[in-house]
């Protein structure tokens, strides 16, 4: 049956309530992403169109997530975060904004969110993980660039992302070419600043980097009209360290066999890390980890010990990009690690909390950020070592390298990861794909064959 919305596309508020109920009855799982049409209208969004996206997200989530068996109970909080993704969380951010605190949108884990948090503001990841906004982007951007960049740009161009509509400004970076040049175009739609991220990690690069961090701090301070004190920064460093530690704890628990949580659920949590309030988020992740610890002790898992354990490594998977995890787990595997920016690259390193003086704090902060091993750097051999380390610690049985289409740096670095796997005898599959569904059949075959190879 066609959803009602296809027939009555444009009437906003009143109809929405009906649609919501309708959907409630239609969805077997009773899951929905909540609608806040008045708020969206105030944010100058394309409400009718966005409402369709909202419904679709709810349906997909119901199908992919709520149909999973043996889910930990504490996933309920994260289900709710998805349900409130376009509402409750936006409301909270708008409350913060009302007090004059900065709301900053970012696209890369190199932008130090500690500084935004120190200013009392909110830092939110805006990377796009949906095919739905790509046609908006392709009206102006070239087609043959990374889908994550196109998706994100399309969300702004189409006015179909409440986060984008809420931010004071966007802080981009000079990591890959696709992003670097898109900022110039994005700046026409939303104020966009750029942090120069060097391409190497020499002493002079570090010197530049620190200057860039200071510029970022100044920009954040400009919005709230208040200087960030070293006391504020110390507090923020703790808050974000705690968030990262909670995610480290979750990752460590996934090493258990049977795996206590699905890869899909863990990926979702890693995605939510980019838009949730950090203190609450850490608390909820820790509460979930308590439950997972009990499971591990009791030898309970989401799937039996015979399920092949896969580690995914490569480019980030932005919400709602669950394509590969869904294919892997539908085929009977369990994903036990994401070596990715929406994954361990985001939380494996912490900032030294001992520093009390601003300059030393910024040094410590920069040192931490310089440890991130993104393929945009050359050389970047520490990533190859890191992949092997995580492969071992997660007790995975194979590595799936994931590269977004047209991401040159990851696609080329894939060679080194593959060579390492060959040398170590690690079963390995490399996939390059975008957000479109057209290659799902072929990916399914390749993934199933990979699992057959591991099962023997």
């Amino acid at each position: 049956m066609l959803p009602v919305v296809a027939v009555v596309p444009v009437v906003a508020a009143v109809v929405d309530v009906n649609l919501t109920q309708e959907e409630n009855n239609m969805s077997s799982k009773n899951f929905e992403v909540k609608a806040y049409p008045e708020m969206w209208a105030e944010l100058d969004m394309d409400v009718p169109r966005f409402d369709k996206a909202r419904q679709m997200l709810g349906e997909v989530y119901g199908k992919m997530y709520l149909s999973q068996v043996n889910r930990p109970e504490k996933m309920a909080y994260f289900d709710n975060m998805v349900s409130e993704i376009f509402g409750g969380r936006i409301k909270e951010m708008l409350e913060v904004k009302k007090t004059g605190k900065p709301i900053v949108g970012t696209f890369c884990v190199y932008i130090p969110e500690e500084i935004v948090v120190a200013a009392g503001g909110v830092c939110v990841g805006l990377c796009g993980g949906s095919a739905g906004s790509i046609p908006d982007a392709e009206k102006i951007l070239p087609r043959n660039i990374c889908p994550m960049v196109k998706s994100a740009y399309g969300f702004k161009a189409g006015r179909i992302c409440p986060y984008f509509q809420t931010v004071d400004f966007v802080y981009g970076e000079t990591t890959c070419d696709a992003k670097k040049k898109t900022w110039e175009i994005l700046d026409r739609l939303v104020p966009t600043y750029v942090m120069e991220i060097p391409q190497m990690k020499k002493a002079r690069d570090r010197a530049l980097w620190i200057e860039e961090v200071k510029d970022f701090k100044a920009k954040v301070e400009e919005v709230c009209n208040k200087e960030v004190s070293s006391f504020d920064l110390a507090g923020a460093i703790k808050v974000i360290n705690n968030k990262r530690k909670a995610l480290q704890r979750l990752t460590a628990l996934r090493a258990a066999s049977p795996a206590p949580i699905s890869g899909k659920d863990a990926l979702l949590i890693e995605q939510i890390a980019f838009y949730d309030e950090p203190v609450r988020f850490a608390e909820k992740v820790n509460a979930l980890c308590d439950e997972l610890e009990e499971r591990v002790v009791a030898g309970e898992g989401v799937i039996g010990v015979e399920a092949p354990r896969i580690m995914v490594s490569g480019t980030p998977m932005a919400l709602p990009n669950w394509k590969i995890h869904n294919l892997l787990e539908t085929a009977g595997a369990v994903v036990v690690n994401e070596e990715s920016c929406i994954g361990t690259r985001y939380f494996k390193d912490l900032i030294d909390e001992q520093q009390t003086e601003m300059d030393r704090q910024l040094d410590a902060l920069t040192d931490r950020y310089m440890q991130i091993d993104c393929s945009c750097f050359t050389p970047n051999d520490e990533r190859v070592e890191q992949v092997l380390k995580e492969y071992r610690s997660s007790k995975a049985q194979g590595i799936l390298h994931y590269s977004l289409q047209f991401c040159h740096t990851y696609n080329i670095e894939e060679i080194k990861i593959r060579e390492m796997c060959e040398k170590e005898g690690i079963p390995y599959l490399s996939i390059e794909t975008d957000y479109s569904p057209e290659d799902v059949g072929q990916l399914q075959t390749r993934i199933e064959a990979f699992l057959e190879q591991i099962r023997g």
Partner: protein
Amino acid sequence: MHIGIDLGSRTIKVAAFRDGVLVDQQLVESGFDPYGQAMALIGKYDSGRIVATGYGRHLAAEHFAHEVITEIKAHALGARHFYPECRTIVDIGGQDSKVISLGENGRVVNFQMNDKCAAGTGRFLEIMAASLGFRLDEFGAAALESSAEVGINSMCTVFAESEVISMKNRGLPVKDIAMGVHLSVVNRLVGMLNRMGYGEQVIFSGGVARNPCIVRLLEDRLEKATVLTPSEPDLVGAMGAALYAAEN
């Protein structure tokens, strides 16, 4: 009875074994109703264990197959049955091409499939044959009459087709253009093989293995390897599935 069914994108193949001996084989076009076709093929046998492979394997599993395996595994099993020593399989079907490497024990150790496009597949040859005015089954023989080295540079089917058309319009002999088309498929394949490495025997399966020009070019370009084509190259996957049914 142990039955293997390979539901490919263009054709459906069935192989049936009894006590380790191939007793029946069938091949039909998938047509508009692959499920109906498959049911009709399977209906021929009163009983038996059915293993499905190919793009339609999951559909088969929903309705009649007892188990599914991927084309990769099916080809490995099928090829090994006929060539117990082989370590490399090249399969070119209607919509995809793949190279499979086996370990000494016959297990799959690595494989590669072509990406999202038709270049280097049976479909590519079919489109090119049509635009040059050949029937598919005469295309290879026609190309073999040429000794020219015409290069087709486009990897994409759509661009390659316009390249072919402009060559025709420039007055190049069609047999030379046909050779160029075959060369482009083989070069791509040899690239895949070189990247992965290959054994002394390269087993060539899939419908395209019936094309004499592709076979010849592949032999020429693979040093130190013999290209072996099974007598029924399209049936290797179905046979592998049937053998799997027998084993498990």
